[in-house]
């Protein structure tokens, strides 16, 4: 089997696995079943296959596959799924959050299939260890915020009287809110580290740690949104519904930063190419 064949086989099997896992999570929520071990196994196996696909592509193209739109979306799908698997494993009492966030993964996955799977070159300035550090922290940030989004989604659905019975077996809103807060605290730490790593890289490579390009500005807005969410909760003791709305708003901004800016800006970072 060639590397390309390995990549494609693993990739498509992983996508089928993600799709079945999403359907299963939603079916379990609607029909109040708990196929938790099956779901965890399915998601983990699909994630492993996706990892193999990305690894095969990495070897094939000779650099971390984060250059084209397809590669960016694939890496983000991988990061979001990794967060769901870890959250699913670490938060056994709150596993219903997966049914809330997995449709978002499916949406990004569908989008990922639109651009060509072409092989493109990384700019020479991307040949640095800081690229890996920057991307790793940003993936961790997005993952932590994604789990918080799932928990916030349950609180908001309950408040809207949607699926209240189906979420009845879950901990109270206050407990979900506490866990979401911890996830957002982690998100702040990882986002800060990601931005700092990016700034060190930018200063080293281009002499400016901040260029005010669209992606940098939106990453600042994302950081401010996380900071505001945490500050409001800590200072005003706001109820879970308000905190959840703030988390939702923060994720929308983060989502636009990661997935919308590539359509606004011609380069990942203006200064980078």
């Amino acid at each position: 089997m060639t590397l390309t064949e390995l990549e494609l086989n693993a990739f498509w099997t992983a996508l089928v696995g993600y799709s079945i896992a999403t359907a299963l999570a939603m079916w379990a929520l609607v029909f109040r079943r708990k196929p938790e071990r099956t779901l965890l196994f399915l998601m983990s196996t699909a994630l492993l296959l996706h990892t193999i696909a990305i690894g095969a592509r990495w070897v094939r193209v000779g650099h971390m596959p984060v250059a084209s739109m397809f590669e960016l979306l694939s890496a983000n799908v991988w990061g979001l799924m990794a967060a769901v698997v870890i959250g699913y494993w670490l938060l056994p009492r709150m596993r219903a959050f997966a049914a809330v966030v997995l449709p978002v993964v499916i949406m990004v996955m569908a989008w990922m299939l639109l651009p060509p799977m072409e092989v493109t070159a990384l700019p020479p300035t991307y040949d640095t260890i800081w690229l890996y550090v920057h991307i790793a922290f940003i993936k961790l940030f997005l993952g932590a915020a994604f789990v918080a989004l799932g928990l916030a989604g349950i609180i908001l659905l309950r408040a809207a009287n949607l699926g209240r019975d189906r979420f009845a077996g879950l901990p109270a809103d206050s407990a979900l809110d506490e866990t979401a807060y911890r996830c957002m605290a982690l998100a702040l730490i990882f986002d800060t580290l990601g931005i700092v790593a990016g700034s060190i890289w930018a200063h080293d490579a281009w002499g400016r740690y901040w260029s005010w390009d669209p992606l940098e500005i939106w990453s600042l807005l994302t950081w401010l949104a996380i900071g505001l969410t945490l500050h409001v909760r800590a200072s005003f003791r706001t109820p879970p519904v308000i905190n959840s709305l703030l988390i939702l708003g923060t994720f929308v901004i983060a989502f636009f930063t990661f997935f919308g800016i590539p359509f606004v800006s011609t380069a990942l970072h203006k200064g980078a190419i």
Partner: protein
Amino acid sequence: MKLLAALASPRWTVGVFVLLAAGALGVLEFELSATLAMAPAFTLLTANLAASIATNARFRRDLPLLVFHLALLMLIALFSIGRLTYFEGTTTLTDGTEFDNDLLSEERGAWHGDGLSTLRFRNEGFTEKFPERGNLHATYNRVRWWDDAGNSYVAEIGDDIPLVLDGYRIYTSWRRGFSPLFLWEPDAGEAEYGTVQLQEMASGGSGFAPASDWQLPGGPTIWVMLDLDNLPAPERGRRDALGAESVRHHLIVRLDNERREVLPGETIEVEGGRLTYAGLRSWMGYRIVYDPTIDWLNATVIVAVGSLLWFYGRLLRRRAATEDAE
């Protein structure tokens, strides 16, 4: 004291977040000056943070929280100092020539000194390497520089690899082009060499032929255009100095209404002297940046991130322990 207490209100902090976001969007959408757009938010943040630290007992009880907010204050101070002392400029140098403080563009903070005048470096040619795929290529430019004792060294710099001299970071830019070398022998006076930096070459040598005006020292102004017989598109692999030494070409020199075609080594008579075309060279564009606050910023960021980890790490550990106990 009442004013301090009012300024310390967490409502003001919410206002700061909104103001910072508005400033950032102003830079993005309306291309406002970042310094001006962010100044009101940073001023309010400074007042709010200082008042909070002074009046809120929680900061005295919670060391990591205090350290994080002091680090934020320090960052604001460093950003301000950075804007007052920074420098950013561009220049171009023909192969074999030294930097003489002639800048194409420059921006500098009000407190920036004249350290630029002591910079001494020379362009000694460049090589471009083209990858197997894509149009993005790497630049390797050899630059000679001198230390205070007069010893000279050669560094290889590029688009992302700077030469750092006295805190100034010198990078190559994407601008580069051909530069014909002439010997100008005036009827009266000493002969001297001079170069004309022709406009940048479009990628692959397509588009208009590069041309420029040149005022001969003490003589008339000539117009010079490079006519390349056939500049091959960059192939995979390497290319030195845009291929200046090997490309077949001739120059078109125009003086008033007179048009001449000149090959390397040929001499033409112009008003006031003789002009010999010595050969084709290349020129490279440079970006020079300076920010003396970088090391302080790095140290402060480490303290800020460390205190953030301390603050939230403690919170996460405590809650995890509580859940285990439950």
